[in-house]
């Protein structure tokens, strides 16, 4: 349907009042996350998959691997490409049709964290340099939107990648190029970095983590940071119309880094099962 979500003044005041008390409508404090659940290997037909729930927000990420040609300027690298769909299945405020800005932003921010952190060594996806590489598709679908899609998206993508298994490729001949995919011989995708994204949201003068839908909608600005397991910052994106002072940014990156550790803990717990 794509109706705009109108939040009443009364509801806005309610949220702001609670923030002043370091509280939120569901009893959490400002820095608290809702319950996180990660289920991997959800879709057997996919090379990798994961469903992540943060509170009532739910996203599924699926990984498909296909053989293809590398990009001409990176002949020894495999390819990863990330997409996201905000289907009207997940919310009365999503519209049908090809991915709009929001979906594209979600995909690109998630992609940036994974790519820039070198979570996967793309050269390991190369089969015949210059001719044949694995192309990994990371496709995400939002199953229910209750705020904070960014953090859920990266968590789902990483959980899916970390449990992905790709078949071995046998090269029968190089000229002409003939290969055989050994469907039965699966190898786990090697993960070099366990990247996690944490988004901080600004409502007035308050900064919160993991907003629900209403909080997300009334937030003035947000910054999504990507961190690797060595506490390095690998990606950053500010969204929405509001602004941050330099001091605020420095404070927030440290707060987010702190939070990233517990998110990573959830990730590692889920993929080690």
């Amino acid at each position: 349907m794509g109706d705009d979500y109108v939040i009443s003044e009364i509801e806005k005041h309610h949220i702001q009042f609670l923030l002043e008390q370091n509280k939120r409508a569901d009893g959490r404090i400002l820095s608290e996350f809702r319950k996180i659940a990660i289920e991997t290997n959800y879709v057997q037909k996919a090379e990798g998959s994961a469903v992540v729930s943060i509170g009532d927000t739910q996203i599924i990420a699926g990984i498909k691997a296909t053989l293809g040609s590398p990009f001409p300027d990176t002949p020894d690298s495999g390819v990863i490409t990330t997409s996201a769909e905000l289907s009207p299945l997940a919310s009365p405020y999503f519209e049908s049709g090809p991915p709009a800005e929001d979906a594209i932003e979600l995909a690109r921010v998630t992609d940036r964290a994974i790519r820039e952190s070198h979570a996967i060594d793309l050269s390991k996806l190369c089969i015949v340099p210059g001719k044949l590489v694995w192309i990994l598709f990371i496709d995400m679908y939002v199953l229910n939107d209750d705020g904070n899609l960014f953090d859920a998206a990266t968590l789902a993508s990483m959980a899916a990648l970390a449990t992905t298994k790709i078949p071995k490729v046998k090269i029968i001949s190089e000229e002409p190029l003939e290969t055989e995919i050994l469907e039965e011989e699966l190898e786990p995708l090697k993960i070099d970095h366990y990247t996690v994204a944490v988004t901080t949201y600004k409502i007035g003068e308050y900064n919160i983590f993991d907003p629900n839908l209403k909080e997300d909608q009334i937030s003035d600005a947000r910054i999504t940071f990507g961190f690797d397991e060595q506490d390095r910052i690998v990606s950053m994106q500010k969204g929405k119309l509001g602004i941050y002072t330099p001091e605020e940014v420095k404070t927030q990156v440290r707060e987010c880094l702190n939070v990233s550790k517990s998110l990573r803990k959830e990730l590692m717990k889920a993929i080690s099962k």
Partner: protein
Amino acid sequence: MAGDGTVQLIDEKGKRVDGRLKDELRPTEIKIGVVKNADGSAEIRMGKNIIIAAVYGPRELHPKHRALPDRALIQCFYRMSTFSVNDRKSPAPSRREKEISMLLSDALTSVVLTDKYPRTTIDIYIQVIQADGGTRCASLTAASVALADAGVPMRGIIAAVASGLANDIVVLDLFDLEDQKGSGDMPLGYCPTLNEISLLQLDGVFTLEQFDECLDLSIEGAKRLYDIQTNTLKQRYADIRAEVAVDEDDEVKEELKEQLNDEVKEELIEQLKEEPKKEEVKEEPKKEEVKEEPKKEEVKEEPKKEEPKKGDE
């Protein structure tokens, strides 16, 4: 799809590749309320199929000129996730998805009491998470449950299953391999309480005897699925002990009719003047409830059935 019959799909003992006998359904499970934002939703697992159906509506339709003046539009959108099949499916809507969306919309339109909500749309979104044959049928089965969960009034609930030919033997509920390599496939959507078939397709090569046998077997399978749908819906509310709430409900309606009198209105006026309300708590007038009267006139029987259905195969 029509295969060439060279793959052995069923052995001499009547066992199929996945261990089932010819008249066995795949293990099926339905969960309700899986999409919190939706007005109604259901997830079905049928063998390896994992499909989510989410219902939004009745709600307003944009653009308004597409709305029907005297009833609700039923719009079903069937989509397959890229990773739901072995070879990644392109995210762009395919012709197959559009056709299936239409078939599902038509089938559901035949049972929904659309004249109760003129000028609205009831949108059903189907997301195939994993596909393993018979997804249009499993989608229809899930969509019916999701509509019931949403409180959309219907004449009955539809269950759907595809039967077909495996090595020329009629089998129930084809899974992907049988669909691909078998020689015939007949998806069927059926409402047992109405004895109505609302979705029907066929491809392959069937003799008349095989045709009849397939149809009967599908109906039998649909009835079993219907039992699963019924149990799932009733289980959801099984813990309600109704007596107390129900009686109070009716009495309350009687009381409320009498409460909005002048004295009480005066108080409300005082309270709701332009200034912010700071006064102490006062009694609130209760809202008048329009009384519920048993319908004396006849409810119109069924929605129009004479319309030619689009997409007849």
